[in-house]
């Protein structure tokens, strides 16, 4: 049996140190070891996107990475999107346009949108659809999600 390995990781600006079994998925490490339960597990095979986090600034499926791989990494989860006082413009737009219902896919949607808007501050509706098509939502039918991201793009450009 493979032994536990030390890792040091920065999540939402805070340094954590811990020991993990190599097979522990990053999503389980975030949820169980760091108690950052905002990141959700939906399929554990990389399709649904609920577990999406930003890994060194890029979106990744945290169910398709092992926690050991995060040693030295800088991670942002849903808990790190707002400044702790006011909603981030993307969060505000999702609220304004009803871009969420049950809220389970929402962390993945928000972080995927965040990455999109970093790379492409003025996306077309089709570009938004393409970007968020990697995250499954069973509640909204996506229209209000797309509206939300478009509105967030507007707000963030201002």
């Amino acid at each position: 049996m493979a032994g536990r390995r030390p890792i040091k990781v920065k999540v939402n600006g805070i340094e954590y140190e811990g020991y993990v079994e190599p097979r522990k998925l990053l999503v389980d490490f975030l949820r169980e070891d760091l108690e950052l339960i905002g990141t959700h597990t939906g399929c554990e095979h990389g399709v649904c996107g609920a577990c999406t986090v930003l890994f060194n600034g890029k979106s990744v499926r945290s169910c398709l990475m092992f926690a050991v791989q995060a040693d030295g990494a800088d991670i942002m989860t849903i808990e790190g999107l707002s400044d702790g006082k006011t909603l981030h413009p993307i969060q505000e737009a999702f609220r304004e346009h009803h871009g969420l219902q049950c809220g389970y896919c929402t962390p993945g949607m928000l972080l995927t949108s965040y990455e999109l808007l970093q790379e492409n501050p003025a996306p077309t509706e089709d570009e938004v659809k393409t970007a968020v098509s990697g995250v499954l939502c069973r509640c909204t039918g996506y229209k209000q999600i797309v509206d939300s991201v478009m509105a967030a793009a507007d707000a963030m450009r201002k």
Partner: protein
Amino acid sequence: MSDREKERWVGKRYKRKEDLRLLVGRGKFVDDIKLPNTKHAAIIRSPYPHAWIKAIDTSEAEKLPGVRGVLTGRDVAEMSSPFAVGVPIPPKYYSCAVDKVRFVGEPVAVVVADTRYIAEDALDLIKVDYELLPVVMDIEEAAEPGSPVLHENIGSNIYSHRVMKYGDPDRAFKEADLVVRGKFHFPKYGSTPIETYAVIASYNPFSEEFVVYNNYQGPFVNHSIVALALGVPENKMRWIVPADIGGGFGTKTGMYPYIALISLAAKKTGMTVKWIEDRREHLLASASGTDRVTYMEAALKKDGAILALKDKAMDNTGGYIRPPEPGCAYRSTGNHTGAYNIANLDREIMVVATNKSLTAPNRGYTCQELYFSVERLVDMAAAALDMDPAEIRFKNFIQADQFPFTTATGGIYDSGNYQKAFQMALDTIDYKKWRAEQLKAREQGRYIGIGMATIVDPSVTNISYVTVALPPELRARSHPKSGSGESVTIKMDPLGKVHVIACTNPQGQGHDTVISQIVADELDIHPEDVTISDIVDTHDRIYTITTGSYSSRFASVGVNAVVDATRKLKQKILQIGAKLLAVDPGEVELKGGKIRVKASPERTIAVKHVAGTAHWNQSALPEGMDAGLFASTLLSMPTSQPPDEQDRVDSSNTYGFCCEAIVLEIDPDTCEIKFHKWASVHDSGVILNPMIVEGQVMGSIAHGLGGSLLEEFAYDENGQCLTASFQDYLCPTAMDVPDIDIGHVQTPSPYTALGSKGAGEASCESVPAALGNAIADALAPLGVTINELPLTPNKIWHLVQEAKAKKEQAGHEA
């Protein structure tokens, strides 16, 4: 009153309260709950669809470090009894296979270990010896004598069988100018919420009490059923559902066997046991909608009037049948003739067993199955009569002045204006223009299709409908059942702020927000001054057997309860205020945070003062009034009555209307579908929050679209499920849902306090029919028959090839 109107919160796009936790990662889902000393369960499942379990060897698994115990079917049989179900001969359905497995994915044993990882390691060490049996996968074959029998105690694969006649269908068919017939096959698909099933169970052997955190959609009937199966009184089976459920859609009403199973694992191991269903488990063995074979006939007059329907439907609930099934076959009883004034119906129902996974209500609960047949048949009738499919619908609609309208089957349609809504949909897509376009396109070899469906969407089931599964004479032997109750408690704190305690158990429908809007209107306060706790806790919530979020109950009965409780509270406030103002209660009104004397508005007292008095100076209250300031209600819908002797029942309590009008084009080469126009018009009564209703409508469209074009629990002929991952079970993505024009007609329901009714399921019921009709219409020149779903490009291409080959052959022969 213009000021007053401006201040109304109901009807506004009021932003959701729920979002302030869900957007920032502070939602509370079952998997987020950490209890001390929690161990983790993994379930070993049958790879075979039908087999005897000859032996299970768990010894190696039990030796693995970190494993705390193993529960097998033998334990389950010793510690519990089969789940009760309302069919004449119930199968022996336990939470785990005991001596036989009947579908791939059926639980066979549970391992409890320190981590889920170790529990799964242990599964590899369990050896199960199976003796394989022949399988039956086809619905019609399953009902034939001589096919492999799943349940020896039943002796056949037929769980439920009824023949019912409403009106005089035989005569109607004799008098018909024309009879059209069709056979339809509706697939097995499910809503696959992104949050899977989740259970955390513990058992105290000293108090003999279970406490189970879960994400079930209410206590509903299944709380009683699980308690009964585990042999504990209901008050010792405490269920707690936290504030957030990651989507339900009916699928999560299928999780209660796991509540039982994990409770038993907790009891056997003495540990608190957590089980989070993984996606593969979910796709193999959670719950789907029912796949159905329908033979349907319509008796018509030359002018298009539908005199009668004959419907033989065969539903497949898979390896077992469990409550609320056989609801699948009976849920639509009251609205079985849809949006049409059809006086006669001949119904035969069969619910059968096959070696497929099990079913549960799935958003729309078999109305999609029903309307796929009805609405395809209406289009076929129009074609046979050379009528426009829109025209035949107008011809047969129940008229706006006929409401409330009692259907042949006992449904009491509360309100509607079907003509107006349907016309709106046709106008939105520019129907005439697209018919002309279609003709031109056909000349160019392009396949443009226009499809429509007009349906009645039932909400708030009356629990009594399930008893239609029993013939009247058997039904008479047991206690009658009826009702659709919902409870709300509202309280005002000493400073006049309001807290609402509900048990509607939402899964994203925004009940907190709408409750706060309603309460704000009733008490003339701001929604921000209302907080809500809407969870299930069978110990500290008031509920009935019907409580939960399913069958779009909230906007009807849920709202009735909110309004009723709030008005009771308001009465108390007025009474106290009147006493403090030394006038009669009839002389005061509540406005702007003050009680004022109507005749002399300068005489006021602040609500906050009234609230303070109720809490701080109880002796000042009107005589006989309870101390504090709260009101409770638990009410049902008045139309929720048991079935009559003719099997007529108002199976739901409010009935919305929905129609789709779709213009699409099929690529003649690849058979991919492109949408040109899509209008979806809804009448769900008075709209409480347009933003939320729009979200519900879009969501239900996406589910309808998924089931029609993408999603299916596919099995091979040997009983293997081929779609046990999200790589093969295909949910719609943001790129698969086209732009849709949503329209509303609002005919208030006379049976609900604010005129509202359910809005979340309608398009699930209409979209499969409308898409089927649109695709059939597109391919009509080829003579392609569309009678099944999902219509994948691969399937459409094969249908086109067959039709072309047939035409060619006919050409050769001619």
